[in-house]
């Protein structure tokens, strides 16, 4: 499998901005650790998002100014954050009641692999030497209304992350709704992966070559 060429597709910030564009006004959103955190930088004009961090804060704001942070005001990635007007603190059982109970509208997670059936693997490569660590990912995919993935289309070695069937241990089965990569926005449909949008300068075949499962073009679905 060929690797993705540099300067093709979206940069990480652009990917994050693309996700932000799809988040509706007033949505309650949980962001995974890593690339998803970049999304907080982008709020489309006229919209207000409320960020939930599962360690116990609704109304999470941006990182504090240098030197203004507090060790006991952090996010799920254990980075210092702020609390916006209208925020609320709560304990972990209440926080995961929000998640498991279907109160969070949307979460955006990173991925190691996504299958065409919407299975997600994002917590372990299953390597014998790895320290298994799952955090709240399994709760999020089981409870949040919409599960979006943001990820590079391929691994650093150029292997596809969007595949027919995950080989790594699963986080959840049939849980992913949409995938945002540097190359495309791809929906998980009952028929499999369906390209919703191609990144500027990227064509369908280019994405298909870098994907380990059959891609449906949006128009295919419209025809059927």
């Amino acid at each position, binding site marked *: 499998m060929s690797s993705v060429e540099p300067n093709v597709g979206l940069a990480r910030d652009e990917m994050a901005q693309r996700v932000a564009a799809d988040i509706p*006004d007033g949505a309650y959103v949980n962001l995974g650790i890593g690339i998803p955190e970049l999304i907080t930088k982008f709020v489309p004009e006229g919209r207000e998002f*409320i960020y939930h961090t599962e360690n116990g804060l609704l109304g999470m704001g941006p990182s504090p100014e240098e030197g203004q942070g507090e060790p006991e005001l952090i996010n799920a990635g254990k980075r210092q954050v702020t609390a916006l007007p*209208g925020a609320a*603190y709560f304990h972990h059982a209440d926080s*995961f*009641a929000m*998640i498991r*109970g279907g109160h969070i509208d949307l979460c955006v997670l990173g991925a190691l692999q996504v299958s065409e059936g919407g299975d997600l693997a994002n917590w372990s490569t299953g390597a014998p030497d790895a320290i298994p660590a799952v955090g709240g990912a399994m709760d999020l995919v*089981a409870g949040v209304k919409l599960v979006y993935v943001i990820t590079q289309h391929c691994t650093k070695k150029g292997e596809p992350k969007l595949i027919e069937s995950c080989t790594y241990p699963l986080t959840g089965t049939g849980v992913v709704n949409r995938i945002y990569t540097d190359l495309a926005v791809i929906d998980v449909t009952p028929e499999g992966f369906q390209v919703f949008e191609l990144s500027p300068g990227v064509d369908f075949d280019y994405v298909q070559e870098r994907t380990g499962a059959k891609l449906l073009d949006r128009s295919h679905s419209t025809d059927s």
Partner: protein
Amino acid sequence: MIDKTVESLTVAVGGITDGATVMVGGFGEAGSPIELIHALIDHGAQGLTVINNNTGSGEVGLAALIKAGCVAKMICSYPRSMNSTVFPDLYRSGKIELELVPQGTLAERIRAGGAGIPGFYTPASVGTPLAQGKEQRTFDGTDYVLEHGLRADFALIKGKCADRYGNVVYNKTARNFSPLMATAAGTTVVQVAEIVPAGDMDPEVVITPGIFVQRIVLVPNPAHESDLVRKGVSYP
């Protein structure tokens, strides 16, 4: 801008259809959203399943809703009152259904419903008529019954103060079931005596975070059920 406040009680109870399940906050008169209940009577939905610890007193609030014939079924723990014959009369004549649930089980079922937990085990009611027909299971030598999460289409509750995000604080023992019900309904409607600007409420003291609330309506001077009952008020 996110603003969950609505302009009237009529709008607040809008969309409650015939046959809906409605959780109503309050334990006795403490926390009873009388004004929302009266708006629901005016709204006119029929065949409701109502979840509340009690069945109201006098002929106002929840008792008035039952008297108006809007309620097909009550789910509660204590459907008796010193000051009301509304529910008992209908129950004895077979015109209203009752699902009797131990109080702690009722609270936990509502919490479970809101927390995405479809079932849990409790020791309460084992060996009693209320355990009949329920699945039993032994953990570490003690018997438990399986109870199911409870959800509703709407929750009508009363808070003390809210902001436009729907963050709510309550007043003393008026808190009771309301923070639980807020989590377990498709649409949670809260009447409050005060609405403060966003940021005025300390994030440490919020009891119901706004994520659980869909509509806030201002009722600056809510009536007290016991006052109305003493005065012999009957609604409508």
